[in-house]
């Protein structure tokens, strides 16, 4: 029976929901409604028709209240009431939000796992993304950077096709004249080091560059004071970084100050550049005008390895053609030399933006990155994020059964599948936004540590609004990604089943297994990868290098002061009982070893390129390098200092000599005196005079004066008192000069700092990835134990033993772990093999890392699932069965 008053009350209720309608307004509308009803009934309609007619005439409550709101609001831009959802959002978004929050409160543990996992994933992803961006964008800030190239010398294929990053001074002017119109500008940069003195400050600076006058025009480093065109124009000019200015001059104006280099050259500071510049392969604190050294070997000697030469090409230049023409250029200037040495070098060009990532050139002592590492890191970042998303998918779809009733009710009331999918995606988005906020905090906290670890400088574009927009879009996208699968499972429930008490099949458990396997495959690849990297790094560090690097102190003798006093220093030090021996050399093992052409007598005077080492007579004994044949240099033979060499085994093989036969063969050194033959007096066993990244090259050791390093072998264990002694002697002989020293074992190990860095970053990423995966597994096992509580209770009552139940419950997870291992091992094997092939000396890839990984993952799975499983198994069955 139609009851008018009831219906009117209901009708009024729809208005009450609207905050902008006050009771009086509704009352007024009601009276209007009643008037219309009366009017209709007078025309002969029955009550119900009249009511419906009247409701229709008055119009919808929403649009009326919107009008009321418009007349009340002061918002000039939008008449949309604040409680109404914008058109682009799902209509029921606030309800979804409310329900999501309720669910979050009800399942705090799950929410925590989800948000924690996701935020770690996001933080790692964002950090690594910016890190790789940084790495890949080196030198991207230079104006006309796409036209800038560095000139490299290249040895022919027959000699190993190696590249040399440095050229000599005369190249630049010659190229400028020979290629005018093709090459717009040529620039020389000489990375140097030296003793910088100002008043009573003497500091050894190793970022002291010499460069041509137009350095600041050629490159786009920012000048804070000084005119780009003038600062380096003329000899004895110097530009310093703002930080260096503070270091030397404090608050005083640096411009006009005079500083000394190596107590020999004086420079006037003419400008200041910003030391914080975008990432660049060149990193310097001082740039002095190269013109200062006009007329010296540095600028005039063709055969030297002293400067980087950069070309800025004309925009119309065909690079390949120029590269080809440069070979003719080489022949023009070096043709005669090549005919003699039989070692024709060609020239090639390297794009400015590629310099940072190409680390394979010789004598290229600038900042370098590693593309493989960048690629590996990017993959790992994506994987960590993926693991976090999978966690979310798994946990939400597992929890879905508990929400079956809600979904049933929504469906019965009329929710369509589309709107349910929208609901769960919105819910996931709420999670992803929350995780984003947590991730932002994590990033703020982690970034300084990460920068330390990778020695990089990550710049977040925090003042760019686009950054926030992209972040937001990324989080929404993540919500879609993570929410789509649970949404699909959840919205598929049949309402009748969902609402009856019938137990629902655990939706999507098959896919869940696949997802868990995916997570574990990623984790396994990471764990075994870390083990491989670790074993290779420790192999590099611990491999017998063939010489004794313990208790050796190194003093750099690059500066004339130290070099000139080295013999006195040696004499003074050798008297000390704690010092075993002192030796001079051109470069310590792991350090600089130049490459010379040697004229070999029994090869018909043909030239062979080999690495060289200039030493005194103590070198072999100090480092305990094993002599295989012949004898060491000795004071007893007066001609040793000018007419003897010692070679390594590889050199003997390279020259087709049996090591024993090599004794007595003769060679001349092109750089010294081509006519003066020296005899091989000994052959040493191969030792690693360079890092283990490269093979042992042929090496010729000979006494000469070009000493740059002083090595001091210490006898005593009391290092600090010996160091004090050395410092005292040093101070007496070379007063006012800073005493700086290194330990050989440390400098040698520093060759592997890149590997160590990679190892630590990779380890951290792996730990994070595993943490997320473990969180997920823990959640999943909790869910599985919970949902099988009753089953376990019944099994127990029927007599199942605890062991059997544990096997039953954990067995499932272990199966997944085993399957993951089977999938992951070949992948990991392949990647490891590839990575190891970067090294000339490497550990054998054995089964051990993979076996360890298998054990580790099984343990991890046991730990993650164990607690919940044991809890379920040892629960009193009465508890679990008694409810309904």
């Amino acid at each position: 029976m139609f009851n008018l008053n009831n219906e009117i009350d209901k009708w009024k209720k729809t208005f009450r929901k609207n905050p902008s309608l006050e009771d009086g307004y509704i009352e007024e509308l009601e009276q209007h409604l009643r008037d219309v009803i009366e009017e209709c009934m007078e025309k002969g309609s029955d009550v119900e028709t009249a009511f419906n007619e009247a409701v229709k005439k008055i119009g919808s409550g929403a649009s009326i209240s919107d009008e009321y709101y418009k007349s009340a609001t002061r918002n000039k831009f939008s008449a949309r009431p604040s409680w109404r959802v914008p058109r682009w959002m799902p209509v029921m978004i606030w309800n979804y939000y409310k329900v999501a929050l309720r669910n979050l409160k009800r399942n705090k543990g799950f929410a925590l796992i989800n948000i924690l996992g996701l935020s770690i994933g996001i933080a790692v992803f964002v950090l690594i993304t910016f890190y790789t961006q940084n790495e890949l964008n080196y030198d991207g800030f230079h104006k006309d950077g796409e036209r800038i190239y560095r000139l490299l010398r290249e040895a022919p294929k027959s000699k190993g096709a190696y590249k040399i990053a440095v050229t000599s001074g005369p190249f630049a002017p010659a190229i400028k004249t020979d290629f005018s119109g093709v090459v717009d500008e040529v620039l020389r940069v000489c990375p140097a080091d030296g003793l910088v003195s100002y008043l009573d400050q003497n500091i050894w600076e190793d970022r002291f560059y010499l460069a041509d006058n137009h350095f600041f025009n050629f490159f786009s480093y920012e000048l804070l004071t000084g005119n780009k065109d003038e600062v380096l124009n003329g000899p004895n000019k110097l530009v310093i970084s703002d930080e260096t200015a503070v270091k030397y001059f404090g608050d005083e104006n640096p411009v006009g100050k005079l500083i000394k280099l190596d107590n020999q050259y004086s420079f006037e500071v003419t400008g200041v550049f910003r030391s914080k510049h975008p990432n660049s392969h060149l990193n310097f604190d001082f740039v002095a005008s190269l013109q200062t050294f006009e007329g010296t070997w540095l600028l005039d000697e063709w055969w030297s390895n002293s400067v980087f030469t950069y070309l800025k090409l004309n925009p119309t230049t065909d690079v390949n053609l120029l590269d080809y023409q440069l070979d003719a250029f080489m022949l023009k200037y070096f043709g005669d030399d090549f005919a003699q040495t039989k070692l024709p070098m060609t020239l090639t060009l390297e794009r400015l933006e590629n310099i940072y990532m190409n680390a394979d050139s010789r004598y290229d002592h600038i900042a370098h990155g590693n593309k493989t590492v960048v690629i590996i890191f990017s993959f790992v970042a994506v994987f960590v994020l993926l693991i976090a998303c999978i966690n979310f998918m798994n946990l939400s779809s597992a929890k879905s059964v508990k929400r079956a009733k809600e979904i049933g009710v929504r469906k019965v009331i009329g929710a369509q599948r589309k709107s349910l999918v929208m609901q769960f995606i919105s819910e996931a988005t709420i999670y992803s936004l929350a995780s984003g906020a947590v991730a932002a905090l994590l990033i703020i906290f982690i970034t300084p540590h990460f920068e330390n670890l990778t020695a990089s400088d990550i710049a977040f574009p925090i003042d760019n609004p686009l950054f926030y927009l992209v972040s937001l879009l990324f989080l929404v996208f993540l919500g879609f990604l993570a929410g789509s699968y649970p949404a699909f499972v959840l919205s598929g429930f049949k309402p009748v089943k969902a609402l009856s008490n019938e137990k629902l099949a655990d939706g999507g458990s098959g896919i869940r297994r696949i997802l868990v396997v995916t997570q574990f495959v990623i984790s396994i690849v990471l764990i075994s990868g870390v083990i491989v990297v670790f074993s290779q790094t420790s192999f590099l560090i611990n491999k017998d290098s063939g010489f004794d690097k313990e208790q050796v102190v190194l003093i750099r003798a690059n500066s004339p002061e130290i070099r000139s006093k080295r013999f006195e220093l040696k004499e003074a030090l050798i008297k000390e009982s704690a010092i075993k021996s002192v030796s001079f050399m051109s470069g310590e093992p792991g350090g600089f070893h130049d490459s010379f052409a040697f004229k070999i007598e029994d090869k018909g005077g043909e030239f062979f390129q080999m690495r060289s080492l200039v030493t005194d007579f103590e070198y072999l004994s100090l480092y305990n390098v094993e002599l295989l044949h012949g004898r060491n240099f000795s004071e007893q033979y007066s001609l040793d200092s000018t007419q003897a060499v010692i070679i390594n085994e590889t050199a003997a093989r390279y020259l087709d000599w049996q090591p024993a036969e090599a004794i007595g063969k003769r060679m001349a050194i092109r750089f010294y005196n081509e006519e003066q033959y020296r005899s091989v007096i000994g052959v040493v066993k191969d030792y690693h005079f360079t890092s283990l990244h490269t093979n042992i090259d042929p090496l010729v050791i000979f006494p000469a004066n070009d000493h740059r390093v002083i090595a001091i072998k210490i006898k005593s264990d009391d290092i600090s008192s010996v160091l004090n002694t050395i410092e005292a002697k040093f101070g007496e002989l070379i007063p006012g000069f800073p005493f700086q020293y290194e330990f050989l074992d440390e400098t040698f190990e520093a060759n592997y700092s890149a590997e160590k860095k990679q190892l630590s970053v990779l380890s951290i990423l792996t730990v994070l990835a595993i943490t997320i995966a473990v969180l997920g597994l823990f959640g999943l096992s909790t869910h599985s134990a919970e949902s099988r509580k009753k089953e376990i209770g019944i099994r127990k009552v029927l007599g199942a033993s605890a062991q059997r139940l544990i096997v039953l419950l954990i067995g499932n997870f272990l199966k997944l772990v085993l399957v993951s291992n089977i999938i992951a091992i070949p992948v990991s094997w392949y990647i490891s093999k590839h990575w190891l092939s970067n090294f000339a000396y490497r550990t054998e890839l054995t089964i051990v890392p993979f076996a360890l990984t298998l054990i580790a993952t099984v343990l991890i799975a046991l730990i993650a699932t164990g607690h919940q499983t044991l809890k379920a198994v040892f629960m009193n069955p009465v508890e679990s069965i008694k409810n309904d």
Partner: protein
Amino acid sequence: MLSKNLMAASSKPLILAILRGGENYGYQIIQRVKELSGGELEWAEGMLYPVLHKMQKDGLVQTKWKLSDNGRMRKYYRLTTKGREALNNEKQQWLKVHGMLEKVWQPDASLGTT
């Protein structure tokens, strides 16, 4: 049918003019509008009230709840002095527009400057 914009624009002078004849309540205002338009002007009747509310807020009308003869409460609207001024103002404007349109629509005027 009138366009939505024109309807919205004309509602204010229409209501003001109707109220000039004395205080009135919503239902009757609607009836009067219907009469005037010959049934052509169809408002969603509820939409009248927000307009009245706005006019009250602007001080153009005053309201008062009264008990009617059949025992129901009714809210009556009455023009204020400001409302009268507003009506005059509106009238001037509408007449001006009307006059302009009239002139433009004269058959010979449409020929332009000739």
